[in-house]
């Protein structure tokens, strides 16, 4: 891998960010709207049910951390879609740029935008609801990284499917992460899910991550087992999704779809 090439392709997507207002909307507008709507709703619930004093923290922190996964995923999928929409794949792959360098740029962009987006939404949560994410300590950091990893897995998998089957399934970019959210226990514990769903949740690293995060936030303890299991699952899924992406890419090379894309 060559650094100058990774820089070049990262620059290509950063330029896009400079010109495209949609990108700003993705990072700032939607998370802010989510936070305001859900925050006010949970404040209202809290005012009705006095027993649920921590409900605001639970919902707001769930929302914030869901953004981490969302950002990690959408960054990869949208950048793949951008190349397809612009029919630009031929321009980037008829150069020495390697497939691995392309994927690396997505991960770098995901991290950059996560830092920007996470800082923004955390500050907003503090300003609006006095929720301080990092008062719960830096125990949260490994979980945040794991969430980002889960986002990459979904992003790469969706990108691979779109490359393989075309833009007719592009809606997956926005819908697939939400399909896994019920099993991820974003706003509630896994134990309230029906038995079959609890078993399904065992295969989702996100369920361990959100459970683990709630333990950090409410009990101040970190469950190392949950951390290890989610990391292991993430590693397996990341390897699998990269493999599927490579297969899809090989398929479009074989079918001559780069010209079409």
């Amino acid at each position, binding site marked *: 891998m060559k650094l100058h090439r990774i820089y070049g392709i990262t620059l290509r997507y950063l*330029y*896009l960010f400079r010109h495209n207002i949609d990108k700003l909307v993705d990072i700032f507008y939607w998370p802010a709207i989510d936070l305001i709507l859900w925050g006010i709703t949970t404040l209202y619930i809290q005012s009705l049910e006095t027993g649920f004093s921590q409900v605001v923290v639970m919902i707001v922190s769930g929302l914030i951390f869901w953004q981490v996964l969302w950002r990690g995923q959408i960054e990869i999928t949208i950048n793949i879609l951008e190349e397809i929409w612009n029919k630009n794949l031929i*321009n980037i*792959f008829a150069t020495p*740029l390697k497939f691995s360098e392309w994927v690396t740029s997505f991960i770098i962009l995901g991290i950059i935008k996560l830092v920007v987006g996470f800082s923004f939404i955390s500050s907003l949560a503090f300003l609006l609801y006095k929720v301080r994410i990092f008062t719960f300590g830096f125990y949260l950091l490994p979980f945040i990284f794991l969430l980002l990893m889960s986002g990459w897995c979904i992003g790469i998998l969706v990108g691979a499917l779109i490359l393989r089957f075309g833009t007719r399934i592009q809606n997956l970019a926005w819908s697939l992460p939400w399909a896994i959210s019920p099993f991820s226990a974003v706003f509630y514990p896994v134990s309230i899910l029906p038995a079959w769903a609890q078993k399904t949740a065992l295969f989702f690293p996100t369920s361990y991550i959100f459970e683990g995060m709630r333990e950090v936030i409410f009990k101040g303890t970190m469950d190392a087992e949950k951390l290890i299991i989610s990391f292991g699952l993430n590693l397996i899924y990341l390897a699998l999704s990269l493999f599927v992406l490579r297969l899809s890419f*090989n398929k479009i090379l*074989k079918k001559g779809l780069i*010209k079409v894309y």
Partner: protein
Amino acid sequence: MPILEIKNLTKNFNDFKAVDNVSFSLEEGEILGFLGPNGAGKTTTIQMLLGVLSPTNGEIIFFGKNFKNHREDILEEINFSSTYTNLPGDLTVKEILTYTSFFYNIRDRKKRIGEIKGLFNLEPIFKQRVSELSAGQLSRVNLAKSFINFPRILLLDEPTSSLDPEVAKYIREFLLEERKKFKVSILITSHNMAEVQEVCDRVIFINHGRIIANDTPENLAKSIETSHIELLIKDGLKRTEQYCLENKIKCRIKGRYLNIDIEERKIPEFLEDLKIKKIFYDEISIQKPTLEDYFLETVSKTNKGKRHETA
């Protein structure tokens, strides 16, 4: 040693053979025309040479290195431009050249981009978004991009097709100059036969995925025996028409003008016969066969052959 060698290149899409056992080479500093009708296999071949389409069979060797094993090294020294390729519409010309320059190992990127801007007269559109450019301007940016890495080999897919004649002429001259100065080798596809005849040292003609001919443009044109004659008949138009019918010479009459297609070797005999029959003409123009004639005749022949094969 050739700078590019293609051996038995084949691409099948299921049962359809888009490129069928194609072999040819490109020498250093050579401009090679790659001609053929639409769907002949030209773009498919170029895509395989760029590594964006996997061949079913065959070998591609650039600078003595196998493409399969030395993709990055090879792509560092080649580039391409196609009229049919889009560029990201949201980005400016400057941004496209900048990010693309980082894909290559260029020492002074800023300087190179400045040179390219001057060479292709991009100053007026440099900070404009690609989506705001005309087709001609877009072609110019595509071409400019293809020179960013000082390529030793350029693959050009109809590079001048959407350019106005003046810019197209400038580009042709520019290509010839680059070849002269830096010994750049160019593989060019074009439907503009005059352009091919002007710039190409050699032409490969491909149809239905197979190479039909590989020769200089002059030799290919010469291989067509039929010449075209136009005569302004002063007296005896009807008799000339009759003569053509009797001798099975294809003719068309437009006003006082007679146009005939006749084998080059039969022209003296034809003119002698007119004299004998006291048919007088005021003007005569004889057009020797061109590459375009070759193109049309060969496409027609190979298409007929293909129809027989499939029948």
